[in-house]
C-alpha cells in the first residue's frame, strides 16, 4: 500500500460531487476519474490528497457528441474512445491521429480527456490539442458553472486557473471546417514516454494558398500554446517546403524551451523545429 491514507467519496451525480468537493476542497480534496496520472503521483506520495471524490460512476459525464458544430467531451470519456470514425470530419481525424501517442493501450482504456486537462502536464497531447482547437473548459462548483477559454486556463506546469472546488465536467470544442487539413508529430525517447516536444497543426488551402493556419506546440514550455509567429509565416503562403520551413523556424525561435538533466534548450528547440515541419508535411499527405 503505497499511497497515503485518504477518505473516499463516490457521488452518483454532478450536484452531489460538487457539494462533496466544496466540503473537502480546503483539505486537499481531489477529483479522480480514470486516475492514470493521479494514482502514480499518489504511489510516489508526490500527491497526498486527504479526500478523493470519484466521478467515475457519474453516467451523465459520458457524453461524446457533436452538437451545434461543437464537440462535447464529458469528464468520463476515456482516451480510447477517440478511434478513427468516432467523431466526424477533420476534428475526428486529428483526435484519432493524436490518441495512439498517449501512454499505452491499458492507460488509454481508463484515463480521460478531461482528466488530462485537469492534470495539465506540459507534455500532454490533449492539452496541446485543446489549445490548437480553442477548447472551452466547463467547470462546475456549488457556486455555479464557469466556462474557461483554454487561452486563460493553463498558468504553469501542472497548474491551471481551475479553483480547488471546481470540477471539470466537460470540454467543448468548436469543430474544424470540413476541408481543414490536420497534422501531428511528437518526439519521445520511448513509445508512450513523455514527449520532448510535439506540434499539432490545422489549416485550409484555398486557391493554392494556406488559410486559417493554426500551430500548437506542446512539451517545450510549461504549457502548450499557439505559436502566432509560425501561423503568420503560413497565412497566405503556398503550402510546401518553403512555407513549412519558415513556419518551423519561426516556431523554434518563438519557444522558450524547458531544460532538464538530459535535454537542454537548444536540443528541445531543434525538436520543436522538426516537429512543426513534420506536422505540416503530414497535413498535406
Amino acid at each position: 500500500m503505497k499511497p497515503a491514507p485518504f477518505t473516499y467519496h463516490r457521488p452518483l451525480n454532478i450536484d452531489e460531487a460538487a457539494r462533496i468537493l466544496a466540503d473537502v476542497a480546503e483539505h486537499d480534496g481531489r477529483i479522480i476519474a480514470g486516475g492514470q496520472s493521479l494514482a502514480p503521483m499518489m504511489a510516489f506520495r508526490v500527491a497526498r490528497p486527504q479526500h478523493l471524490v470519484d466521478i467515475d460512476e457519474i453516467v451523465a459525464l459520458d457524453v461524446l457528441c457533436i452538437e451545434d458544430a461543437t464537440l462535447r467531451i464529458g469528464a468520463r470519456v476515456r482516451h480510447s474512445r477517440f478511434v478513427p470514425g468516432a467523431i466526424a470530419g477533420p476534428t475526428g481525424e486529428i483526435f484519432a491521429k493524436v490518441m495512439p501517442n498517449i501512454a499505452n493501450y491499458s492507460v488509454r482504456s481508463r484515463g480521460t480527456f478531461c482528466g488530462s486537462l485537469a492534470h495539465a502536464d506540459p507534455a500532454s497531447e490533449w492539452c496541446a490539442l485543446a489549445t490548437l482547437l480553442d477548447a472551452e473548459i466547463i467547470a462546475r462548483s456549488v457556486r455555479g458553472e464557469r466556462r474557461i477559454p483554454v487561452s486563460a486556463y493553463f498558468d504553469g506546469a501542472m497548474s491551471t486557473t481551475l479553483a480547488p472546488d471546481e470540477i471539470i465536467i466537460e470540454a467543448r470544442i468548436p469543430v474544424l471546417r470540413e476541408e481543414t487539413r490536420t497534422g501531428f508529430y511528437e518526439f519521445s525517447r520511448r513509445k508512450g514516454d513523455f514527449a520532448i516536444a510535439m506540434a499539432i497543426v490545422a489549416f485550409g488551402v484555398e486557391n493554392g494558398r494556406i488559410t486559417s493556419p493554426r500551430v500548437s506546440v506542446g512539451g517545450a514550455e510549461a504549457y502548450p500554446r499557439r505559436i502566432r509567429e509560425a501561423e503568420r509565416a503560413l497565412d497566405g503562403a503556398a503550402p510546401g517546403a518553403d512555407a513549412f520551413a519558415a513556419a518551423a523556424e519561426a516556431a523554434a525561435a518563438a519557444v522558450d524551451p524547458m531544460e532538464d538533466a538530459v535535454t537542454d534548450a537548444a536540443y528541445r528547440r531543434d525538436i520543436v523545429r522538426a516537429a512543426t515541419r513534420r506536422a505540416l508535411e503530414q497535413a498535406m499527405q
Partner: protein
Amino acid sequence: MTRHTIQLKINEQTRTISVDARKTLLDALREDCNLTGAHAGCEHGVCGACTVIVEGEPVRSCLMFAVQAEGKTIRTVEGLAQGGALHPMQKAFTEQHAVQCGYCTPGFLMLTVAALEKTPDMDDDALREVVASNLCRCTGYENILAAVRIAADDMRRRT
C-alpha cells in the same frame, strides 16, 4: 481515512472483502483474495505486470483502488484456463517460449487477451502497439509477439 466493505466479482466468483480506501486493486487481489497471479512490478503504472481485465478492459491494477472496482467484473490470470485447458494465449506463450523469467507473463496474457477480445482482427502493427504497453525486463519481446500472433489466429478460429 475510510475503510470499505466491497464485493468484487473475480473470475465468476463473488468475494466480499474489507479494505482501506488507499488499497490498490492489485494489493487487494494479492493480499485479500489470495490471487497472486497479478504481479507487483513498478507499482506506478509503467510496467504492466499487474494487468487484469476489468469490465472487458485491460487495467493496470496498481493504478486502480480496490474500492473503485466495487461491483465490477474482474478477470485475472487465474481465470484464463478453462477446466484444465489452457487459454489459446497461454498455450501459444508456452509453445513459442515467450516466457523467460515469467514475472511479466500474467500481465502480457491479460493485456493481449483483453485487446484481442475487443478487436479480434487486429493487424500486425496494432498488435505490436498493444504489446508495447507492457515491459519484459528479459527483453523477450520477439517471442512474445510470435505467441500473440499465433494466439490471435487461434482465438479468431474458435469464435
